[in-house]
């Protein structure tokens, strides 16, 4: 449930095969107008499979399904009856495993599109060098290039407000036990860096199968190791005016929560405080969606977005809601 705000709040979904446009028409911070922009049940020709990834530029909404990218031009003028979208490309890998996308336009006006590794742990880059990478392209789909290698599955990234560098979360491999390997919050300081997968996880954990091929020292370590299996997805920096100063410029993470662990963890929003590009703390900001004793949860955070007033939206694909977090007032 990636969110993009452009007057209208757009929400992509993984499970429903729909893209929503939400409006708060009377300014009470409650959505009161909901449109379905794309719905594969109603428009089978669009073949919108897992249209989680959405981005907005120059009046157009871009929707990334697994292997395809669509463009809905002038979307805000046609929310009632959206025209058929333009197909920008249809030649990205078709693997559903880690195929659901998070996409975004960078400060360089390029569209960033990751391609997950099509497996828990594998090296299939000889088949298609885009597996396990983050790519970028011009809005028309041209001039494609790979900007980061060794990325297992990123479902959340953003640009640092001061440096314009790309920061991204990465979900690490499963089946190495409850506490290995840690998740990752990463920073790309130059195009073409390699972040370790499948050889080394979180900068320090050689993979049992692939680790002998290349040492961890070959790769860029994470800014912050996250909890193992927490499934960190959305990441955003607080640049707004609502939250207290102690939160300014620090990174908020949506942790979707573990599936491959004897005791569940994640199911929370965490805060990584920074000193420059270095992390100085990693702590919960909001928790309680998971009841530790019963091991049942009532929600799973997916994506984060700061509104213009500085409040924070959190999308939840289990409770099927969007929350708004405010301070004071």
């Amino acid at each position, binding site marked *: *449930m990636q969110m993009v705000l452009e007057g209208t*709040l757009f*929400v992509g*979904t*993984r*499970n*429903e*095969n*729909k893209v*929503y446009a*939400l409006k*708060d028409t009377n300014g009470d*911070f*409650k*959505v009161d107008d*909901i449109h379905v922009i794309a719905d594969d*049940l109603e428009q089978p020709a669009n073949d919108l*499979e*897992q249209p989680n990834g959405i981005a907005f530029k120059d009046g157009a909404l871009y929707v990334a399904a697994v292997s395809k990218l669509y463009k809905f031009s002038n979307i805000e003028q046609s929310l009632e009856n959206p025209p058929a979208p333009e197909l920008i490309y249809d030649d990205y890998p078709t693997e*559903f*495993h*880690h*195929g*659901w996308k998070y996409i975004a336009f960078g400060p360089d006006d390029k569209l960033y599109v990751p391609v997950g590794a099509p497996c*828990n742990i594998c090296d299939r880059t000889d088949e298609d060098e885009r597996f396990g990478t983050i790519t970028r392209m011009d809005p028309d789909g041209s001039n494609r290039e790979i900007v980061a290698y060794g990325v297992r599955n990123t479902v959340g990234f953003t640009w640092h407000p001061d440096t314009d560098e790309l920061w991204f979360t990465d979900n690490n491999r*499963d089946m190495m036990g409850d506490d290995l390997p840690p998740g990752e919050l990463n920073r790309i300081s130059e195009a073409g860096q390699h972040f370790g997968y499948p050889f080394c996880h979180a900068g320090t954990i050689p993979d049992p199968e692939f680790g002998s091929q290349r040492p961890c020292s070959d790769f860029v370590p994470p800014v912050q190791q996250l909890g193992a299996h927490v499934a960190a997805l959305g990441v955003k920096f607080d640049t707004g005016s609502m939250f*207290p100063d102690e939160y300014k410029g620090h990174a908020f993470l949506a942790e979707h929560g573990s*599936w*491959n662990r004897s005791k569940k963890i994640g199911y929370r929003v965490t805060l990584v405080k920074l000193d420059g590009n270095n992390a100085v703390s990693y702590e*919960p*900001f*909001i*928790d*309680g*969606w998971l*009841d530790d004793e019963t091991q*049942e949860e*009532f*929600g799973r955070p997916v994506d984060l977005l700061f509104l213009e007033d500085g409040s924070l*939206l959190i*999308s939840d*694909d*289990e*409770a*099927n*809601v*969007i*929350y*708004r*977090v*405010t*301070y*004071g007032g």
Partner: protein
Amino acid sequence: MKMAQLPLKTAFVVLFSFLILSCNGKKEKSEENQNETAQEDNSGDTATESSLPLDRLNLPEGFKIDIYADGIGGNSVCGHPK
């Protein structure tokens, strides 16, 4: 346990849950499937502002959390004719 031995109401709830899960889960990545099917039985509940226990969430002093939008991607699509 045989279905016939369950009280009718329980059987209905179980059946309903299966319908919801099969509708939502068909295209998920395989690892998530295991997780989704392991979730609690109340998947058929419609998430609404009143039914979510927001008071169970722990926020730092001075912060507040509310529902901004609900029913996004809700279970209602499952009944849509294909």
